[in-house]
């Protein structure tokens, strides 16, 4: 697992597997209450601070964006695609607050979306931010151009994995500066490297660490539920499922299928109708053959595995998150998957 850039932590509102609150839902509901919709990916937390006046032509753009957005491969919380950035720049021509002069209205908002609200893929942070520094507003334009120049689907594909893997390693300060480093230059290199920050009493820090560890490791403290995130390529937001509420792979698959049927857009295979039907082995095969979607999971070691290989109980113990991948992503896995499903028949 490559050590991540900690910049992503501040800027994205990325979901994190050990965080118990279901942020994707929170964020979605935030959008509903926000003054203006900036729901490109249905993610924006900063939409709440987008006050007032968005020009009316932006609606049109926003609609366009939504379609584009649903085509995006999301991976973990939010990847910003280049297209999105370009259009978002046009929308941001408004003062955020009457109080504050926004010299660079354009840049600021997209910057803001990048930094604060929307979940961003990991590669975005490294590629998009030169050295991870922004001295005030001057660095902004620099920021935009690399990203808009970048239109690499492959990069965005990698994002989920990296983002996912970045989390556990977050505490390895790699020395990357945060993208919103201070002008003064005395910014800390990374969270982990700053002694005594954030200013929380050691007792509290230690206490929380112990409790979190217990919750993760034992499982006996929360016997009822084992929620893991489920992401799907192309879906604008993630879901969470309680693995303990299923008993077999079939249950899980059918539930996931129901959950994500709205996103498959007719790619459910040869049946046509997005399934309310129980997943059968044939369906699984069809999904695998026809629609190129594969169900994978990340295990405790951080490796991506195909769902279905191990006994259910073992799977529950080791699964940290699920991902419905496009078959083309799972090139190495898919053939085996097909073989296995044949074996299961």
């Amino acid at each position, binding site marked *: 697992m490559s050590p991540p850039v900690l910049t992503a*932590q501040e800027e994205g509102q990325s979901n994190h597997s050990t965080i118990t609150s279901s942020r994707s839902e*929170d964020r979605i*509901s935030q959008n509903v209450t926000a003054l203006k919709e900036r729901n490109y990916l249905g993610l924006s*937390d900063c939409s709440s*601070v987008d006050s007032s006046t968005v020009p009316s032509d932006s609606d049109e753009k926003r609609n366009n964006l939504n379609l584009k957005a649903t085509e995006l491969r999301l991976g973990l919380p939010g990847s910003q695609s280049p297209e999105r950035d370009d259009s978002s720049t046009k929308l941001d021509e408004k003062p955020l607050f009457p109080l504050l002069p926004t010299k660079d209205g354009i840049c600021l908002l997209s910057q803001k979306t990048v930094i*604060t609200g929307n979940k961003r893929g990991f590669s975005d942070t490294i590629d998009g931010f030169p050295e991870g520094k922004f001295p005030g507003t001057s660095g902004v334009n620099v920021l935009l151009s690399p990203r808009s120049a970048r239109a690499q689907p492959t990069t965005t594909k990698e994002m989920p994995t990296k983002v996912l893997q970045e989390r556990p390693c977050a505490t390895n300060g790699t020395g990357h500066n945060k993208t919103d480093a201070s002008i003064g230059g005395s910014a800390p290199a990374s*969270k982990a490297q700053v002694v005594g920050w954030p200013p929380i*009493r050691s007792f509290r820090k230690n206490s929380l660490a112990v*409790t979190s560890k217990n919750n993760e490791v034992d499982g006996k403290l929360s016997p009822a539920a084992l929620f893991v995130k489920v992401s799907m390529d192309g879906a604008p937001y993630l879901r969470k499922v309680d693995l303990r509420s299923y008993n077999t792979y079939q249950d899980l698959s059918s539930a996931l299928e129901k959950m994500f049927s709205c996103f498959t857009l007719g790619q459910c295979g040869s049946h046509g109708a997005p399934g309310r039907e129980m997943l059968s082995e044939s369906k699984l095969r069809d999904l695998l053959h026809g629609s190129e979607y594969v169900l994978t999971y990340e295990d405790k070691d951080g490796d991506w595995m195909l769902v279905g290989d191990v006994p259910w109980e073992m799977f529950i113990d080791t699964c940290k998150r699920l991902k419905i991948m496009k078959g083309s992503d799972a090139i190495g896995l898919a053939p085996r998957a097909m073989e296995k499903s044949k074996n299961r028949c």
Partner: protein
Amino acid sequence: MNYFPDEVLEHVFDYVTSHRDRNAVSLVCKSWYRVERCSRQRVFIGNCYSISPERVIQRFPGLKSLTLKGKPHFADFNLVPHEWGGYVSPWIEALAKSRVGLEELKLKRMVVSDDSLELLSYSFPNFKSLVLVSCEGFTTDGLAAIAANCRLLRDLDLQENEIDDHRGQWLNCFPDSCTSLVSLNIACLKGDINLGALERLVARSPNLKSLKLNRAVPLDTLQRILMRTPQLTDLGTGSFVDEPDSEAYFKLKHTISKCRSITSLCGFLEVSPHCLPAVYPLCSNLTSLNLSYAVGLQGSDLMKLIRHCVKLQRLWILDSIGDDGLCVVACTCKDLQELRVFPSLPFEAGPSPVTERGLVAISVGCPKLHSLLYFCQQMTNAALITVAKNCPNFIRFRLCTLDPTKPDADTMQPLDEGFGAIVQSCRRLRRLSMSGLLTDRVFLYIGMYAEQLEMLSVAFAGESDKGMLYVLNGCKKIRKLEIRDSPFGNMALLNDVGKYETMRSLWMSSCEVTLGACKTLARKMPRLNVEIMNENEVEFNLDDAQKVDRMYLYRSLTGKRKDAPDFVWTL
């Protein structure tokens, strides 16, 4: 001036309770000084090294209640090396030797030994109340001594201490005759305790009003305890975990619903969300709720709970509540006065679900808010300006962005204007702690407007000496100034050396101050202790031009302290 006999003066002074007022009274004239000092029972010493215990005892022979603070505040965040000091033993020894009839002792950030606790327990027959906050150095053996020997013990309140748990039977050391307990807080104990002893102790304490349990106390024990203590007003649960269909849980729900007096709830050191509904019946009476250790609760659980808490005045919570949860708080808790939002995963990846939006919502819904501690992902000037307008009553305002130099999330500007609005609008502000990208300008605002400011915490802020100068020149009432990682140097430090005698202490770490300047300061101000700390070097580099790692200076009548470790050099 002696218009009244001493007894009358004394009687009048009884109504003067605040320390500051009593200090002022004692300065009026010699006879008032005399009457005041003989009648004073409660003494507060903000810095245990500012005065010797003997002098305190001599001046206040009627001393009954003593509060002492030891290490500087930044010790909470591991900025003070471990063996720096703050030992309480000289105090307890001096008090034990004297004729002082000590009844209450409250210590904060001090090092307490088992021997001291034992000496304390033997020496004062009327000893009633021991409150230890963020202390360390003792074990449950010391607690056993307190339990065994303090016959009239009323309060044993252990808050966030580092206690070595010997897992002995210290609770058993409370004699059967001990029935005087009013307040017992053992939440910070990490080990197991004898549950039977606990239950028996509770059973024979009819006056028990406040009980805070530790993680080792399971749900069923809690239920049995609550059966015995229907008069409880302040409850801290231990482990709140069980199967939702268990008998213990069912019984607990029933028992809790009978505890109508509980107004303050905390604990939940371990919690299963599905057990939380058991406390819903209590919510409508709660004025204080502390869920800041309840890592197992999600935002949705918290929101459901808080919707019932209409009378809440004090809320301590984790940021898993999220902005939406804070909106719920804002709608529900109209009487809210104090809010603390702690980060649930401060060092791991992933941003906090709490941003400026939550704070603005709170300011709109809770105009009575006067104390805030808020850890958040990001902040904006606009939000702070709005908050300042909505809540002009702030006394304590502490904001911490998880990235210490993060600018305004919308405009990328420094947060100067936002904090400026806070100090301008909140004329009664006494304590301020800032973070985010900050230039000298914010200090200008603070110096101009923060007239009542007594404590200021600065980290990664400012651009030049001017910042610090604005504060030192402008804030007439500043008492504690603590600065880390900011570019303030010798010019600011030495500009007005007399100022430091009007303050309790100044802390500067990772700033631009040099050894030479500290020496100059120490030379000019003999009644200040100027301590330099270099943890890594036992021998100090004698180069005056070298920057000092950590400097802590405080006014003192005792001179250089004798218990300083090697790495502390008092100039």
